[in-house]
């Protein structure tokens, strides 16, 4: 499988990225993704969301065509709906795996989730997302997927003075370690992935706590406050990297790493 990574930090970088990053939050700009989804409106915001994040997106609306496109190769990942006109998603996946295509596949399903998930994973899908889903979550999964396939080349996220190591699960702020719990680490990692982007409480809740957590809880706010407190205890005068957006949620500041 040919992965088309372009680690160039040039004009193709998406708008949301900081200007002076030493390491871009994700770095895999220019990844080519095939979206096979028949519902035009879903395809519309998925494609738009992915493009905003710097992915090169191709879209097709039926299974037969999707299979032909995918068989040609050249994609870094495929987002595959299960209910499709023509060949259904599971059949496309089966065909691809049979033909020896190992391109990472994320399945989208609205149907009988558990059955689809089991069958899909058994057929060789790499991940699975139940409708309705957040595009932000799809992007996070795509990044994680490609990272896994490419052998974890992007283990360190750095925005401003905040560095995060995904392998050792260590976070440093002004080169001092911040002691975070599992949830806190996952939350800050999620925010750091797209600096400057507003993430709603619900999006954060779903990514960090899981699908079924009661959306009416204030656990996100509590968790953010604790992270802020921990960071502030290291450098009290520095501006907190996590910014509240009133009535919406939070976003990670586009922090300048500053001169070394």
């Amino acid at each position, binding site marked *: 499988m040919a992965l088309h990574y372009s680690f160039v930090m040039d004009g193709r970088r998406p708008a949301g990225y900081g200007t002076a990053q030493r390491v871009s939050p994700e770095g895999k700009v220019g990844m080519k993704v095939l979206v096979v989804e028949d*519902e035009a*409106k*879903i395809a519309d*915001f*998925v494609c*738009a*969301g992915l493009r*905003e994040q710097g992915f090169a997106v191709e879209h097709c609306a039926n299974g037969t065509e999707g299979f032909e496109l995918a068989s040609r190769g050249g994609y870094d990942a495929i987002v595959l709906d299960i*209910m499709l006109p023509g060949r259904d998603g599971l059949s496309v996946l089966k065909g691809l795996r049979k033909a020896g295509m190992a391109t990472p596949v994320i399945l989208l399903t*609205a*149907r*009988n*989730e*558990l*059955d689809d*998930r*089991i069958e899909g*994973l058994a057929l060789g899908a790499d991940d699975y997302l*139940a*409708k*309705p*889903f*957040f*595009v*932000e979550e799809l992007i996070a999964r795509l990044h994680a997927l490609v990272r896994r396939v490419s052998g974890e080349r992007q283990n360190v996220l750095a925005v401003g003075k905040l560095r995060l190591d995904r392998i050792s699960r260590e976070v440093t702020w002004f080169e001092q370690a911040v002691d975070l*719990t*599992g*949830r806190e680490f996952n939350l800050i990692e999620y925010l750091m992935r797209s600096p400057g*982007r*507003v993430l*709603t*409480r*619900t*999006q954060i809740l*779903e990514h960090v*706590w*899981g*699908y*079924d*957590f*009661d*959306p*009416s*809880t*204030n*656990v996100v706010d*509590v*968790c953010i406050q*604790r992270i802020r407190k921990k960071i502030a205890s290291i450098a009290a005068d520095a501006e907190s990297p996590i910014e509240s*957006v*009133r*009535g*919406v*949620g939070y*976003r990670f500041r586009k922090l300048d790493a500053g001169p070394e």
Partner: protein
Amino acid sequence: MRLSFRLRLALLSALLAGCALAGFATLTWWFVRDIRVQQIETDVTEHAGRESARRLPSSGWQQSEVVLARTLGARSPVEVLLLVEDAAGATVYRSARWPADTDAKQFPWPPTPTPDPLARRSDPRMLPPPPASSWVIRPDVDLRPLEPTVAISSFRADGVDWRAGLAVTPYSRVAVAMSLAAVDADMAALRNSFLLAVPLALALIGLGSWIVAARALSPVRRLNASIRTVTAAGLDQRVTTREQDREFEELTLAFNEMLARLEKSFKQASRFSADAAHELKTPLAILQGQIEREINRAEAGSRIQGVLTGILDEVRRLSAISRKLLLLAQADAAQLRPQLAPFDLSAALLALAEDTRMLAPALQVSEDVPPGISVSADGNLLTQILHNLVSNAIKYNVEGGWIRIAASCSPERATVVVANASAGIDAEDHGRLFERFYRADRAHGRRVDGLGLGLSLSRELARVHGGDLELEVAQDHSVQLRLTIPLLPTLASAATA
């Protein structure tokens, strides 16, 4: 105690056969005896008549008695008695063994026949004996003896029944008696053979019907066995009609038809939930995706962004409800198949305790979770159960209350107990807590926001794993929910996994 159908069948047949046999034996015995006695009566009467026609000296009668015993077929001379009296009533001959207590005068002697004058004249005994030298044939004389009058009498002597034939002529009275001892002995032998044969026959019939009943019931047993395998294997199976008797083939067909109807309605229910899922989730996905996009496009912190965020939360709530309903529908239709994998219960519970502290800082949260409890479960579903338990414990708590999360582990199953302080649950609410959309009344206010599906769904999900979820009210002011999950997949869930 209720006897088995087979045993009842065998006993009933034995009872019926027993009644029939007993009736038959009794009648047979009766008829045989009657015939024998009648034969004896005929014989003694005939011989009495014959003897009455003779005139013999006393010694001649003794000889005659011996002959009589032989002709009557008596097994010993003791069984025959002879009495001869002359016309005046004087005893000419009486058997030596004549029973002492039997008075011949008491016999119902028939009346003396009145001789026809002509006949008397012609009776050779009335004529003067012809001269010895000249035998003359007198055609006018009827040589037949005068017919005696006869009667039958029965008496009892020395413990034995006797039948006596009585014959009366104008010259003599003769009684020939025969004992019924031989008949009684024969009848006793017959009765004994019946008493031996009938129970034997009954036992044979009982055994036979026991075996026949088993044979008759064996198709039912076979049918039962195949129905069991079919229902265990799934609704798409059918009982084979091959090797079935005609009567049971109908039963099998009826059962198969019932299975087909069941399967159809199950499929409908499951297709409905799949369709409903698709129909609901697609517009929800569109709505959510578009709102998400607009939130990111809107100016950060603007009013419209806040409004959109509020709408997004409601959309998420709506999808959570529809997802729970669909899970319940699937569980009801037995269509929920968990994907079992090792799941670190201890780690999940510790993370949950951490969340609980963040969610409810005012509550005293304690946990007693030994490390390393791993269960075989569907991570998504089990996490959902645990979330539910904890969010319930928070929702239905009291001000300044407490929550305790404890886990333990036996060789077969892991047990999670989530307890919390409570204002108390009414006794009538206990059983209803697991009803869908039911919430204890005091929780109906807006203060507690949630959906009365949580516990119901959690219990279903626990059962899908082969475990259970139960409510235990420890004291008045605490509520305790106990979740059990098998460490190894149960047979039922392993078969579907």
